Structures are given as C-alpha cells and as structure tokens.
C-alpha cells in the first residue's frame, strides 16, 4: 500500500530523468518541458476533451470504412484482384506465415481498434462527473497500445507495394485506401490534441474519502491552468 505524498498536484517527477519539478500554470497552447532533459511534461489545450473526442469519433467511423472497403483493385491481362487490410493478413496466413500474419493483424487492426475504442470510452466517461473508477484502468491500456497502432507505417508500406506492383499491373486505389490516409492523419492528431494529465487529474481514487481536500485543490489547479 502507498499513500499520497504531501505535495500538491503540480509537483511532478520527469518520466524520463526523474527530476522533481513543479509545473507552473500554463497558458493555452503552452507546454512545460523538463528543465534537465527537455521532455514535454505537460501541454495545455484550449479544448482538452472535446477536440480529442471529436477526432476519436471521426477515427472510429473512418476505421470502420478502412477495414471494410477494398484498399485497391488490381487488374492484369483480364484478371482482377482486390484486397482489404484483413484480407492481406489472411492471405499471409494462408501462404504459410501465420505468425507474421498475426503481427500484421495486431499492428494494423487490433491495436488501432483497441486504441480508438479505449480512447472513446475514456473521453466519453470524462464528460461525467465524478469519473467512473474504471477510466484510469482503460486509459492505462490505451496508452500502452498506442505505439503499436501503426497506421502511418502501413500507409507508406502499401504505397511502396503499389508502386512495386504498378510495374506489372494496373492498380486502382479504392475507398479503403483513402480512409486509411485519413486515419493516418487522425490517429496522430488524437495523440497531439490529448494530454493524459487532463484525465488523470479528474480520476477519483478508489480507496479514500480524506482525499476530498486535495480534490478541490486539483480542480482549482485545473481551472487556473486553462
């Protein structure tokens, strides 16, 4: 068991170099960097929850399109072929590379889907007050899965594949391809517009009542930070 340090919310240890420092109230659009290693400790957004939520909802819709619509059509000497993302991984599985197929499936479909769903749940729950206790747990998973959602990498990979194949056959990009391009922009945009601190400050603790004093503290801090 642990107990809260007798410090206010603004005291923070840099996650990359462990330096203790106090985060001053930030102006909108401002960011606080670690004095020692330049790590970005906090950012302040004009719209810390609504904008990420809007982006996440758009990402969820685009994700559904990107995974159902064909990515591209290929035609050569009267023959046609088309594929989706899942179809690509499936073909890999059929051709005798199940582990690679699983890795591709994870990075291309499962991780982005988890990330979008977890963010959606967290951001929707953040509109409620007090926050449900499971928000912290979900956000933790969301942050873990984030680097494995590789839409930008996949988009570049598909473009390279397209150019390689264009030598041999005619390739038409499909709707799925455009949806992927949009997603490759939306996912980083969610990450940039969202500061997890905004949620953490609102998360209620599971095991205490005596925290109410520091709770008001946090709210005051959050307001002055805006």
């Amino acid at each position, binding site marked *: 068991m642990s107990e809260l340090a007798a410090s206010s919310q603004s005291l923070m240890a840099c996650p990359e*170099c462990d330096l203790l420092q106090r985060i001053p109230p930030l102006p909108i659009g401002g960011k606080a960097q670690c004095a020692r290693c330049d790590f970005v400790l906090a950012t302040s957004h004009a719209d810390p929850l609504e904008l990420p939520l809007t982006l996440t909802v758009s990402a969820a819709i685009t994700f559904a399109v990107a995974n159902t619509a064909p990515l591209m059509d290929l035609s050569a000497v009267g023959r046609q072929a088309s594929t989706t993302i899942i179809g690509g991984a499936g073909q890999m599985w059929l051709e005798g590379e199940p582990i690679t197929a699983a890795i591709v499936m994870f990075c*291309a479909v499962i991780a982005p889907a988890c990330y979008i769903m977890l963010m959606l749940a967290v951001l929707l729950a953040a509109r409620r007050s007090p926050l449900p206790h499971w928000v912290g747990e979900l956000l933790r998973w969301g942050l873990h899965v984030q*680097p494995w959602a590789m839409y930008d990498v996949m988009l570049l990979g598909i473009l*390279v594949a397209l150019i390689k*194949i264009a030598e041999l056959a005619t390739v038409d990009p499909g709707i799925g391809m455009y949806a992927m391009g949009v997603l490759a922009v939306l996912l980083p945009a969610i990450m940039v517009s969202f500061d997890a601190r905004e949620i953490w400050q609102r998360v209620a603790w599971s095991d205490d009542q005596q925290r109410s004093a520091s709770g008001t503290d946090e709210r005051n801090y959050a307001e002055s930070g805006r």
Partner: protein
Amino acid sequence: MTTRALSAAQAGLVACETCKLLLRPVHPDHLGHCPRCGAELEVRRAHSIQYTWALIVAAAICYIPANMLPVMITNTFASSEADTIIGGVVFLFTSGSWPLALIVLVASVMVPLGKLLALGYLLISVQRGMPGGCRERTRLYRMVEFIGRWSMLDVFVDTFTVALVQLQPLMSVVPGPGVLFFAAVVVLTMLAAEAFDPRLIWDSATNLESQNA
C-alpha cells in the same frame, strides 16, 4: 540547471510510470500498485538492463536470417525468383524509384541496425556509470523510441504485395521465411526500447552531483 537537482528517487518518492502520480511509499520494498490508475509501482523499471540486453541479443540474432533469407518469392510460369530485403531495395532502385528505395533502405536496414547499436551503447554507458552527455543520450533514446515502429514498413510492403499479386497461374507472390525473422527483429527492438529505463542514464549523473554538493 544551476540549483541542485533532486530526483524523485533521492527524495524517497515514487512516480507512477503511467499516470505520473507522485507517491511516498510506506514500505520501500513493497511498492504495490498505483491507487489512481492501477499500474504496478516501480522506482526504476524492474531488471531494465537485463531485459533490454536479452531482447536486443535476441533481435541481433534474428537480424541475420532476416537479411539472408528471402522475404518474397515471385512465381511466374517459367521461373521462381526469391528476393531478400536488400534485393527489394535494389529492385526499387533499378526500376527507377530511388526515393522509395532510399525509404525502404533506411526503414528496413539502417533503422533496425541503428536501434541495436544505439540501445547497446546506452546499456553499456549506463552499466559503466558514464556521467556526461546525459541530454544527448536521452535524445538518442527518444529517437530510438520514435523511429522504431517505422521498420515495420517492409513487413507491410510484403504483406500487401502477397495479398494483391495472386494472379494464378500467371504470377503469384508468396512470403519467404525472412519476413518472420524481420518482423521479430522489429517487435523485439520495440520491446527492448520499452524495457529500457531512460532514468538510469541520469542516475549516475545525479549521484555524482549530490556527492559534490
């Protein structure tokens, strides 16, 4: 910074790695879980150096077959041609798209190798307690973390080439065994970057500073 730097560990505090909450542990040996987000509390990532070494050694071993074995085998009715990663780069270069060849070369050959070397250097420097260049080493670590995922590029290229070029019996592309090793290199180096604790870079410098003060 001119004033004396104090790290959370020196102050007897633990920062939750996930939600950054600062806590004063009751039992220094049993930190338990973060009361706010449920993550396991650690002063430094557990066995960071051993895990990172193990992962990059495994990745270095996989790196050899990843480059020697073919990643794609192209079958046409007359012939069957196996391509390694370098072969793919050469193909892109000779077919006239040298910018793409450069992208693939950087992402699939130089980035994995650079990541292995960079993490190895960071580990050795931490183990030897090198005091200087902390800022630069942290920047190096951040770069490794950031570019790591981009080496997945070639795996995606192969997957979608295989998925599309299925024009039996005229021509078909099947994946080679190299893809698996290559994907393993990428995943292992990404995990290694996650296992490495950048705060270790600063620990020797902080200790030195507090001795002098």
